[in-house]
């Protein structure tokens, strides 16, 4: 009898100490190896990539029965070893939802409703094992692609309806066609792994968990477009991803999958470039400058990178998931891929779930899957058991989807229609108590700081947008400010140089569209005072309250009876312990 333990060694699980769990496991099994051999049990421990349910990490899957263990701690290791020796399931480590335990990973609702295609090898194979990669359909796609001629490869890609997964959703086949048609002795292919959206980490996960798949997609791209040199641009904040991809490149080079005359058809090699972590470097012209060693800031287009890219040579830039999708397309066929999706875009959607959800992490569903399936069936609804009020989708440049629209299909066009966007696929769930305005303020702060500062609308405009939002949050604004907010958002959107500035007002516009009541409450509604846990019970506020709305025993936390409160703010003024907040 042989058990294989797949332990997640990707960044999220590492952050909750999965490596310590793994070490302890190895140590204990070694200590008790006599017992194992007496019972004829063989145990193999594999460090795999991201298993996906990051919010409940560290994760482990026990093969051959595919049992999922969650929230592992070093102290749980003994239980695991005992369970293995007794061929039993460690009940207390199983995944639970609504008091029901699930043994098999595929029965767990989080996985049951997913369609894992791009992620099919993530958390399954050892990321840097070329043998395992090939055993799990690796390089099938490349081989199929090399049987076609480059034009046919591009046609196949167009047929698959693959659209760029970086956010803009431009048809990948067309992009490749432009590069193929560009006349130049040198052409470059770039993989954009400068994932910067707060709350998005699927590119990192793919690079860490299935690096060969990304490179295979690039190889197909090299063959189709005629590029001989490639770059993978990874942000420096992703040390593990960058290290994995570098090792993967080395392994492929040693095995003849990178370099001169691969399968006598294509010559291609890749260099990894680490960015310094500027959000704007995900914009393709900024990324090009950064690769050239210059300050990463966007430039006007045209000329597009397909005409003038790195060092002035034609260049094509695609997202990590786009290349991984290419690999899938040539492995399974364009038709298969197209059928996964909707009329206008083929394939699947990879999302990063965060916010107030029972289960958070990376998931993959077919393009066009209703949002509510993701929120309720996969993620299990609100973790705090409150009602969900909205999701922010597509990162800082995306928009909000209110609960009334949770039926919406997850694809480029449906989301665009309501002023949101799929973006790179970050999804943040908000419950009824979360403040939309604070979310807007948070994103504006992020964008204000990440603006490259070149163009006036983005540099100055976003600062002013944030000032207006903050005035509103602090009950310091009137309806004229709301008009100004509208006008300035419109200005920034229509006048900024690059996608970052143009996309910044999205979150404001969609919050105004769906949550104008929250704005109005702040502008014309009363200030709500509440007492926090910092209260020491000095009673001063209660003594000063003109309407006796504050109750509480001395030396205990006090409360404000909102039905009596006249919002005069006296309590806020007299509190010496900063225990009263206004909202």
């Amino acid at each position, binding site marked *: 009898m042989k058990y294989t333990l797949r332990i997640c060694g990707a960044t999220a699980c590492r952050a909750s100490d999965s490596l310590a769990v793994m070490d302890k496991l190895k140590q204990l099994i070694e200590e008790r190896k006599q017992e194992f051999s007496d019972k004829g049990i063989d145990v193999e421990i594999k460090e795999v990539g991201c298993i996906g349910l990051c919010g409940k990490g560290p994760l482990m899957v026990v093969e051959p029965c595919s049992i999922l263990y969650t929230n592992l701690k070093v102290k749980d290791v003994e239980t695991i070893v005992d369970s293995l020796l007794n061929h039993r399931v460690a009940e207390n480590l199983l995944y639970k939802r609504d008091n029901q335990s699930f043994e098999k990973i595929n029965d767990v609702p989080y996985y049951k409703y997913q369609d894992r295609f791009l992620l099919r090898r993530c958390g399954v194979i050892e990321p840097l094992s070329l043998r395992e990669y090939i055993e799990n359909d690796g390089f099938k796609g490349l081989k199929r692609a090399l049987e076609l001629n480059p034009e046919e490869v591009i046609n196949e890609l167009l047929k698959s309806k693959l659209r760029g997964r970086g956010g803009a959703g431009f048809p990948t086949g067309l992009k490749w066609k432009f590069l193929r048609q560009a006349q130049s002795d040198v052409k470059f292919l770039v993989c954009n792994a400068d994932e910067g959206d707060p709350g998005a980490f699927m590119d990192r996960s793919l690079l860490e968990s299935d690096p060969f798949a990304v490179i295979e997609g690039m190889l197909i791209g090299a063959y189709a477009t005629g590029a001989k040199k490639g770059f993978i641009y990874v942000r420096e904040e992703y040390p593990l991803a960058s290290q994995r991809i570098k090792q993967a490149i080395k392994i492929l080079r040693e095995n003849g999958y990178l370099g001169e005359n691969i399968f006598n058809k294509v010559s291609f090699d890749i260099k990894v470039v680490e960015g310094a972590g500027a959000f704007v470097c995900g914009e393709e012209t900024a990324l090009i400058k950064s690769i050239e060693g210059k*300050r990463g800031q966007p*430039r006007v287009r045209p000329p597009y990178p397909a005409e003038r890219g790195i060092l002035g040579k034609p260049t094509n830039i695609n997202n990590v998931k786009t290349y991984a999708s290419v690999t899938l397309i040539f492995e399974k066929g364009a038709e298969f891929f197209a059928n996964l999706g909707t009329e206008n875009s083929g394939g699947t959607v990879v999302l990063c779930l965060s916010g107030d959800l029972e289960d958070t992490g990376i998931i993959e569903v077919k393009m066009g899957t209703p949002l509510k399936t993701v929120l309720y069936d996969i993620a299990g609804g609100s973790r705090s058991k409150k009602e969900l009020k909205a999701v922010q989708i597509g990162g800082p440049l995306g928009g909000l989807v209110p609960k009334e629209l949770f039926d919406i299909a997850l694809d480029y066009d449906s989301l665009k229609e309501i002023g949101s966007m799929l973006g790179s696929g970050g999804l943040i769930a908000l419950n009824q108590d979360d403040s939309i305005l604070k979310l807007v303020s948070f994103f504006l702060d992020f964008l*204000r700081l990440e603006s*490259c*500062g*070149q163009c006036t*609308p983005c*540099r100055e405009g976003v600062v002013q947008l944030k000032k207006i939002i903050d005035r509103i949050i602090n009950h310091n604004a009137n309806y004229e400010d709301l008009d100004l907010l509208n006008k300035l958002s419109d*200005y920034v959107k229509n*006048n900024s140089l690059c996608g970052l500035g143009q996309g910044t007002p999205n979150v404001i516009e969609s919050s105004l569209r769906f949550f104008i009541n929250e704005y109005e409450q702040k502008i014309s509604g009363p200030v709500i005072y509440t007492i926090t846990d910092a209260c020491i019970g000095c009673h001063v506020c209660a003594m000063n309250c003109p309407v006796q709305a504050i109750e509480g025993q001395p030396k205990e936390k006090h409360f404000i009876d909102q039905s009596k409160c006249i919002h005069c703010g006296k309590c806020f003024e007299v509190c010496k312990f900063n225990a009263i907040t206004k909202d």
Partner: protein
Amino acid sequence: MKVKINGQEYEFDNGLTVLEACRKIGIKIPTFCYHELLEPRAVCRLCVVEVDGKLRTSCSTKLKEGMNIVTNSEKVFDARRTNLQLLIADHKQECLSCNKSTDCKLFEYANEYEIEEIPFEILSNENPTEKQDVDDSSYAFIRDLSKCIKCGKCVQVCSELQTVNALTYAGRGRSVRPSTAYEVPINQTECVFCGQCVINCPTCALEEKSETDEVVSILNDKDYIVAAQIAPSVRVSIGEEFGLPAGEISTGKLITALRMLGFDYVFDTQFGADLTIVEEANELIKRLEGNGKLPMFTSCCPAWVKFVEEFYPEHIENLSSCKSPQQMFGAVFKTYFAKKIGKHPEQLKLVSIMPCIAKKEEARRYEFIEDVDFVLTTRELARLLKSYGIDFAKLKEGSFDSPLGESSGAGTIFGLTGGVCQAALRTVNHLLTNQEKLEFEFSNVSEDGFLREGSVEINGRTIRFAVVQTLGKARKIFDNLDKYDFIEVMACPGGCVGGGGQPIPTNMEIVQKRIKALRKNDEMKSVRLSHLNPSINKLYEEFLEKPLSEKAHKLLHTTYLNRKNNRLSKDFGI
């Protein structure tokens, strides 16, 4: 191709941008970041127009057949107004006391677009970084970031036009600023002080370091005899500051104005230029005979000299050892002239009127320390005249004092690109063949006209020369120095007429007019070869003996410094 602009059909050549087309037919479009010689970056976003219903930056949008362009719609107007309001909210408004407010583009556009109130929060007091706003470490210019509108033009001219890269962007978001590497003071960097950043700055974030107060105080001090020397290109540009058309020759008025300010003597830097040519031509002949390195570089542009010292110190020997006309003049003034009027050099003060801010730094080089006391740019002088209530346009024509006020046509053309080369070749040719040849043809001219090459046969020896404008182009010649015997480089486009101290605006159209005026001035001169200037000959007879004499060497020639990686020189700012 045919396009529609504001409802009317127009026909244009291929390849123009919307901005260029609009300017051609007399439609003014406001810009901050646009520089006519450089690639449009479209970052200030002020030049937006409607192209087929959508807002587009006109500087970066190429004309296309059938385009429908609207420059005066409500949408365009609104966008530009908002842009200006955002900038003004983040701009320190000291317009009443600001030296550049009359030349300030932000001021100008705010008026034109009737900006009455700023609906945004005023941010100009919130310095987003902990860095100092003001850098006044150099003698040439002052940077004040609180007035910077971050158009990035200074960075672009520094890196693309001049390839000096002393200025770059630092920071993100609102903290973005033009900065030196590691934020060191500018005098510790490779900056050559060409001043192209200063003249291109739309606001007063970059400004020459004014010396008007010092000049006024010595003019009022009766203990000193104060003289002025006027650079060639100033006489064809200063009129612009007083409403005269570009390219008007106002030498006479300028002399009168300086006398009204209280200068005791008004002399001509062209005298210094003639002297430079006599020395430099003889030096070139000597080098051609095998005594010294070839090609010989001109050394009259201080920005170019520092450029060689900073980036190509291995070629320092190629630089002519002649001081620039400003410094030669100063040396002669403080010795020969002092003796002539029987004064001690310390009783004499010399103020140069220059089109250039690098001349301020040059005058402070330790090799030259006593030659010139103060340097005023064209702009500073104009300001001074205005504050003295001098109505320049109405002044009578004055004339230079003797003997340092006499000059040849060759001295005049020092102010324009190619002039030094031409003047030197005139003298070399005459000295060797005794023939008067005034023009020397170029056989090869680069597309932008900034690199011109030619050759001339003198006494059986072919002299191959090159004339370069801008330091970016100058870098190119180092690839094949063997091709040349004599190279003239001027850091500014058009030469000194386009210098960093000239009136604002200075653009290629205006520069061409100034060049034309100097050419005309040259033609009007009776003597057009430097060494035939009688005052120069007298100077040699009475004082310097002969060209390249020991005395001439001591007074008129200099040495240079390897500044590459030379921290010491940088720490001392020399």
